[in-house]
Structure formats: C-alpha cells, structure tokens
C-alpha cells in the first residue's frame, strides 16, 4: 500500500528537483542564463528584456576580466558608439552639471517613464570641494580640470568617457551614459562644464 502511494510521489520529486549529478560549468552557464530570465518579472519601466545581456556584458560577467584581446575588441566596438558634439560645443553650464552629478534618480521600477535621469556621479566619485557625501567605487575627480588642463585631447577623452566608458576600459563599472540613453547630449555638456570650468566647485575652492 505504502509503496504504491510513494512511488509516483518520489518520481514527481525527482523530476522537479535539481539533478544531483555533478553539472559541467557549461551546463551551469546555460542554467544560470535561464534562471536570470525566469526569476524576474516586469515592473513599471523595468521590463524583463533588461535581463538579456549584450555581448560585452556577458564577456564582463566573471570574477576575472576577459583576455586582453577580447578587451581590446570590445573597446574598439564601443568606441564606434560615441557621438561627438556635432557643433564642436563640448561645454554647458556647470551649475546644471552639479544637479545632474548629485541626482541618482532614474530607470528603476519606481521611476516614471520619460522622467529626466540623473548621472548618479556622487554615488561613486568625489567631485567638488564642498560635497562630502560621495562614494568611492570610482576614482576621485576632485580638481579634475585644474589638474588635467583643457587640451583638445583631455576634453575629447572626457566626453568619450562620459558617453561610453567601455570604449576605454571594456569592463568599467561606469555606465554608458550617452550610448545607453541614460543622459542626453546636453546633460553631458553640463557635466563637462562641471568637470572643467575653473569656476566650478570641482576646481574652485
């Protein structure tokens, strides 16, 4: 009697549970990717398609960075995404830039569609002489323009870095502000001014 009852139950458990045999790393990779799709749901503007990785995101999803060759290849591809200012105008208003640097809003499921995003710069970087609530995931950018000057080379590099940090470091922690549509071209101009303007509190004490 017991046997008859237990057998189908045991079968059901065996089918549902994770197989106990050792799984190869490749199989685990596939299962992990499936898990990252199946374990999430749409909420507001944060839709499940966000769980699908871009090629470079996948290449940068291990404890160790990919090989130097792969990094170079990613950087070359990301470099092509950078949109340079058509009118050659790199700088906006540093005061607007400060607001963007302070705001960490945008793109979560509690944010509304079409709302203006912040840059979230202070989450990770020190910038001005006055703002003491700054994160340390990225390097300090205090006195950014004062220290580096404003040669064409550094201005162009900084624009590119703000637009798509992955063009310079394939697996950088920094978001692709321009490329991923986080910030507009005008917002990036304002951040440029915040970094370079001698009157900006980043450079002026």
């Amino acid at each position: 009697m017991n046997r008859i009852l237990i057998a189908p139950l045991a079968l059901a458990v065996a089918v549902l549970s994770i197989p106990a045999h050792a799984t190869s790393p490749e199989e685990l990779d596939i299962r992990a990717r499936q898990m990252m799709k199946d374990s999430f749901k749409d909420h507001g503007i944060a839709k499940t398609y966000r769980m699908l990785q871009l090629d470079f995101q996948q290449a940068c999803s291990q404890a160790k960075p990919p090989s130097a060759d792969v990094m170079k290849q990613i950087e070359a591809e990301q470099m092509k995404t950078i949109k340079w200012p058509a009118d050659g105008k790199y700088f906006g208003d540093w005061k607007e830039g400060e607001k963007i640097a302070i705001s960490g809003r945008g793109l979560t499921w509690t944010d509304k569609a079409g709302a203006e995003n912040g840059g979230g710069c202070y989450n990770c970087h020190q910038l001005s002489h006055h703002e003491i609530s700054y994160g340390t995931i990225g390097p300090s950018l205090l006195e950014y323009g004062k220290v580096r000057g404003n040669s064409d080379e550094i201005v162009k590099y900084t624009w590119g870095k703000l637009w798509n940090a992955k063009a310079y470091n394939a697996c950088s922690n920094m978001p692709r502000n321009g490329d991923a549509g986080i910030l507009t071209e005008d917002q990036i101009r304002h951040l440029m001014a915040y970094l370079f303007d001698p009157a900006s509190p980043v450079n002026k004490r």
Partner: protein
Amino acid sequence: MRNALKPIAIVAALVMSHGTAVAQSTADDIAKYREMIADGNPSELFEMEGEELWKTPRGPMKATLEKCDLGMGPGVVKGASARMPRFFKDTGRVQDLESRLLTCMQTLQGIDPKLVIDGKFNSGERKTMAALVAYVVTHSKGDKVRVDMTNPQMKELYALGERAFYYRTGPMDFSCATCHGEDGKRIRLQDLPNLTKHEGAAAGWGSWPAYRVSNSQFWTMQHRLNDCFRQQRTAEPIYASDVTIALSVYMAAKANGGEVMTPGLKR
C-alpha cells in the same frame, strides 16, 4: 619662505582630510547609535508580533505554525535560520527561510503562497511574513552561520548564485559585483560589504534581516535583495524565485562560520 609655506600646507592638509573626517564621523555616529539602542532594537516589536502569529491559528485550515519544520524538526525555531538555506527532502528543493515559511503556511494553514509572492512589501501577507521572519531569526542570534555545503543541491545553487552575482545586465551594466566585489568601497557615505570574501559576506549576510532606522521598517532578505536589484536597474526579482535562493546560498556559504547578528540594525 619656508615659514610662510607651513600654514598653507597645514590648511591644505586639513581641507584635504575634511571629507574623509566627516565621512568617518558619520559612520562613527551610526555605530554609536547602534550601541545606544542595542538593548532595545525596535525590531523587538516585529519579533513579538511574529511570535504571536506563529502561535495563532490562521488560514483556511485554522492552524498555527507550531508544527512547521524549518529543518531542525517540527516546531524547532532555535538555530534554524543559521542553517538556512538548506535542502528539504519533503519539497525536494533548497529553500531559504522565507520560501520554507511559504511551504509551512501552505501545508499547515492552507494559505496560498501567491498572496506573498504577488504581494507588496509592508502590507498583507508579506507583512505577516516579515514578522514571522523577525521571530525566527532572533532565535539564531549569537549562533554561527552553518549552511551545509556538502549537499550536492546546495553546491549547484552556489555555482548558479556565483554566476548571478557577476551577471551584468540592464541599462547601467551593473551586477552585484559592481558594488559588492571590492574591499572598502562606499556608495555616497554607505559602506559596502565585499560579498566575495568571508569577512564581508559574514558582515552582510550575518546582519540581515534587519530593522531599518531610516524608514522604521523591518526588511527580510527577500526585501533586501529586491531593493538591490531595483538599484541595479534590472527587472523585478520574483519573490522566492531561484535567483534569490541561489544568491542567498552564495552569500551564506561565503559567510559560513561567521556570527549571526540577526535581526540587524541598519541606517
């Protein structure tokens, strides 16, 4: 010339250290506050509510949770959460505390897990869950994290959890590792534990679930993970879904041997 430079150098040194000094003192103030209320953590109210709920007949079956098996035998709460997540033979799955409580609520009380899974934090059955969690985790305080990593299902979930931890995706290309992969990092003034190492994982995993002073809420681990993913800009993790269990196994395994400080007290 030398003398004239000296005061400037001192002022410069003071100004340079100013930011760090304030950051340090803020961290000190939080530590002091923690000490002050350590004897009266507001989460006690949630624990008491949870104990009451544990012993109150509820659901269509009008039963209590006093026969709930959290892995130590029916009704045993002491030390249970220190050993979770763990593999349960009756469900054939690895379960964290919250998914196991869902099983107990369903089998003993007849409460539909969907009420929690599709619910909202701080309301309805998810609020009930938070109180139950507060009650259970208090009974592992001072214990050591002891998850069984010899179990093959646990090993597999660890491997999946590790992959989830490094999985970069979404409009900001973030993974868990972006914020929790290095020592000594902060977001704004908030210290970030390095969850890839024992010390950081013990500090993080060991001190959640926790009472949050800033919003007077008690947050379970499912709630904590949910808000991490919100800030990562991913879609929303489904309550008690595989990714939440896998990440919990990953963190608990790294934290193994560390002290359980639950319920924690957070900013």
